[in-house]
């Protein structure tokens, strides 16, 4: 593992953030290739299990991106997501996984830039944090 590079799983809501990511692409905005994006219909669909599983399977960070509060295509899905992410973060903390490895961002369909910046910033943060503590042992 000389060439460690953070692996990120990004859950993006269909209506805002996934569109935002598309926009970043359409706009040829460059950002690190560390993220694997998973489209979900709404961040409200997000189960804490997804986050935990992502880390279990080797993710160094998990990004959850949804519509801004008030913009949710399903009225309040993102509010619920907020609560769940907070809970997941707390759990990660107990489990000894730095809660900074989990990030929630509101990215609208028009915020291609924000998407690219978030990614860059997250990868930088993760580089600072180093590899997921779960790694070394699972090999």
């Amino acid at each position: 593992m000389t060439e460690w590079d953070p692996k990120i799983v990004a859950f993006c809501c269909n209506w805002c953030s996934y569109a935002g990511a598309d926009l970043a692409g359409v706009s040829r905005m460059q950002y690190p290739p560390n993220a694997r994006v998973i489209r979900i219909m709404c961040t409200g669909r997000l189960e804490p299990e997804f986050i935990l599983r992502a880390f279990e399977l080797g993710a160094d960070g998990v990004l959850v991106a949804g519509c801004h509060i008030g913009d949710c295509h399903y009225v309040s899905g993102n509010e619920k997501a907020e609560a769940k992410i907070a809970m997941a973060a707390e759990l990660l903390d107990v489990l000894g996984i730095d809660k900074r490895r989990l990030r929630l961002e509101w990215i609208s369909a028009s915020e291609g830039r924000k998407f690219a910046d978030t990614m860059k910033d997250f990868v930088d943060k993760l580089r600072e944090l180093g590899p997921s503590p779960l790694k070394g042992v699972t090999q």
Partner: protein
Amino acid sequence: MTKIEKIIEDTGAFDCAECGKCTSLCPVAKIDPNFAPRLIVVKAQSGLGEEVKADKDIWSCVTCEICNNMCPYEVDFTGFIQRMRSEAVNMGNVPACSQAGAIHTMQRLTGKGQKQNRLLWLTDDLKVKDKGDVYFFTGCSYQLGVLFKDKAEELKRVPASVVKMLNAAGIEPVVSNDEVCCGHDLIWSGNEAVFEELMHKNIATIKATGAKTVVFSCAEGYRTFSVDYQDFLGDLDFEVKHISEYLLDLIKQGKLEFKDTNAKVTYHDSCRLGRHMGIYEQPREILKAMKVELVEMPSIKEKAIGCGVNAFVSCSEVSRKMQLDRLLEAKGTNTSAMLTFCPKCLIHYNCMLRMEKKPPELEKAEIKLRDFSNFIAENLKGSP
């Protein structure tokens, strides 16, 4: 000998005389007449083990051990179910876990070797040690409290409550951040491999502290150490005790005092603590010592109705019906709280009580679920 034959052998399933007593007692069979414990065992005996492995019934069992407890021939039904589940998983018959499996994942994650922050609850006023005779196995109360914030947040306070009680009796327990999940939900959902890993870690951790006694507040952890660990490892190097046993001794020695309370409560025998481990009287005696009035529900001790779920693998209509029956019994006691030592019971009953559309019979129910250890700690002399 095939694996199934070995399971039949070990669990004494061949002793079954097909009397049907297990079915007559089974709470699941009462609600789902197509489910019959004896049928599962007889099938396996009669060379239809593959069918048993593939059947959903293997997950319908709530492993409450009413059948085990009453089977005249001591057939270990739940043991049989537990081990057949792992066979079932191997052939692809997997359970539909609650919370999409987050609880199981969380438990698996405790054992990955990272430095956890298990002791976040440990405040400065609590006195603990790194090495010593008495080890307190905190279990995943705190984590579950986090995960089920809306249903059972008080679980986060349980470890602190236990330490507080022990401190009050002049005991500084060992707690360890290296502890991992006991593996209860994993073995009951057919994941023997990870269960074994976790088990060995825990044993090593406890060994390192030199503890002679390990105490538990969580009913499941207590059962897992007492039965499953010993099933794999034989006798352990330390004594396993439930906090209710341990505290009762301390109370009898006069080391614990309680403040006056005119609380009126009812007590729920969780299946793990009660039928699995035979602890019925100690919690009741503690209440007596606390001068708390205990109003019993109609079904108690070996007949207590369970929460209808086990290891988060079998939440169904059957579970709902069992929960409702139990809560109605609790309601009937007209007490302020139903106490229990099992974190899962707390979660599952609260799950029903906090449903948006809860059954009409429960509309006006004032009943509250409370963790027993928390309840004791709150009523220690001198606590706020």
